[in-house]
């Protein structure tokens, strides 16, 4: 039972990271109208930035700051590229997929050639929090607790912002009906750029959570995660924020449970077979496509 609880906590931590990733991805789908395949890659690159700063200065605050800054800058920089594919009423969503895939490949290549000689990076113990905390038979590292708490809080805050604030309402309005959003006076281009900024901010935070949770990163981490993010959002229904919340958490828990009880090497195959079945049975996703 204790093992199960420990695994469940781990699963929820990983799940909340997936939820944040899927939500950032869906925000771009809904507001900017692009498929941003490279979003997780940008998160991983921000983890690298965080690691570099930790190596150079050993200053945690500076590392957090640079991680978020890099993520915001990367996302904002991609905006002018995608804007060429869009106009006010419609967007070529397929073209955006191709463009973001090339971005993703370039980022992966940069990480595997130029950063840390292509070797995986490991975050220092002080960052991950090696000290262990015991509850009966459950042993958790501090990092696991931070990732769990931070992940859940971030999800709550982000969904509060989306559903209870004016800016969140504006994002959802633009997602639902761009034409009507324009009629009520929402500045479409400005709001779209702002969504890149918010996605970047969120990405930086995900990078911090991820680095604490995993304690390491490798050049190809972005690819693994990107596949899961896009698959999760398709299973939930592309652009469905609430669906992403449920499916992200489920994926995290399922993955950790498979790792814990069956075999780690099968967790990807099981996750993707389940997704394949769901998409075959419900092509619109479990919760419905929202664009």
């Amino acid at each position: 039972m204790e093992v199960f609880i420990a695994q469940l906590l781990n699963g929820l931590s990983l799940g909340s990271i997936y939820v944040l990733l899927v939500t950032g991805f869906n925000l771009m789908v809904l507001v900017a109208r692009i498929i941003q395949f490279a979003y997780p890659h940008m998160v991983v690159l921000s983890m690298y930035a965080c690691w570099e700063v930790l190596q150079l200065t050993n200053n945690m605050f500076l590392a957090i700051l640079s991680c978020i800054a890099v993520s915001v800058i990367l996302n904002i920089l991609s905006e002018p590229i995608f804007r060429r594919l869009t106009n006010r009423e419609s967007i070529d969503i397929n073209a955006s997929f191709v463009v973001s895939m090339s971005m993703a490949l370039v980022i992966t290549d940069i990480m595997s050639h130029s950063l840390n000689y292509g070797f995986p990076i490991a975050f220092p113990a002080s960052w991950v929090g090696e000290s262990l905390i015991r509850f009966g038979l459950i042993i958790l590292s501090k990092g696991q607790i931070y990732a769990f708490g931070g992940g859940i809080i971030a999800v709550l805050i982000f969904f509060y912002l989306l559903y209870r604030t004016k800016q969140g309402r504006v994002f959802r309005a633009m997602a639902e009906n761009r034409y009507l959003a324009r009629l009520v006076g929402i500045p479409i281009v400005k709001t779209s750029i702002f969504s890149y900024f918010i996605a970047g901010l969120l990405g930086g935070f995900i990078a911090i959570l991820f680095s604490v949770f995993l304690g390491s990163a490798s050049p190809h981490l972005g690819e693994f995660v990107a596949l899961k993010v896009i698959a999760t959002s398709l299973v939930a229904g592309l652009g469905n924020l609430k669906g992403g919340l449920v499916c992200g958490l489920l994926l995290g828990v399922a993955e950790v449970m498979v790792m814990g009880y069956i075999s780690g090497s099968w967790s990807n195959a099981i996750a993707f077979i389940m997704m394949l079945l769901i998409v075959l049975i419900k092509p619109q996703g479990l919760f419905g496509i929202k664009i």
Partner: protein
Amino acid sequence: MKKNNILKIKDISVSYGPIRALNNISLEVNEGEIVVLIGANGAGKTSLLKSILGIQKAQSGSILFLGSDVTRKATDKIVSSGICLIPEGHVIFSSMTVLENLQLGAYYNTYDMSKNLKRVFEWFPILRERSSQIGGTLSGGEQQMLAIGRGLMSNPKLMMVDEPSLGLAPKLVSEIFNILIKLNKEGYTILLAEQNAKKALECGNRGYVLEIGKIALQGNTQELMNNSNVRQAYLGSSV
């Protein structure tokens, strides 16, 4: 009584690719008026309203709103200066609540939002009852009321209403037109585009008849109603 000019359109033309939708249209709306724009389907009523709001840019001519040129301005700037358009087909944000729809109408007008909200609820008590309900679950008439309420939330100096009667039962159509007349009496200036010429002419002060992108006739609604061409083409009576 000299009335202030709110909207003054001079010789605008709008084309979609090679197709010319509007041809040298001139039109004026004065403060406190209901100006009706009648014409058959495809005559260019919606195109005209869209070009006033900057959604479809006019290729030539000028649009003055409250004395300033808005011809080349972006839609959000035009909306924030005080024009609202209630589009045809009672369009609302159907996955959002009634309250959220109204709040979105006040994008530039958050300052007196609660006051406006109270006023809209006074106009449309049904919206208060349904305020936490999802917009898409409202009936057609309620959705049209919500669309009008959303427009009112922006404190518009000019309300443009496109085909409010579209897809509504006759009883509801009369109700919506009565609301527009009441709003006008409260001081709202309205530009109304409508296929239902009889109803529209009954409630307006002045009118313009649009035919294939051109103004065919203009004048007092009384004059228009008595005009034999209008009677024949739009009011369905034999002369």
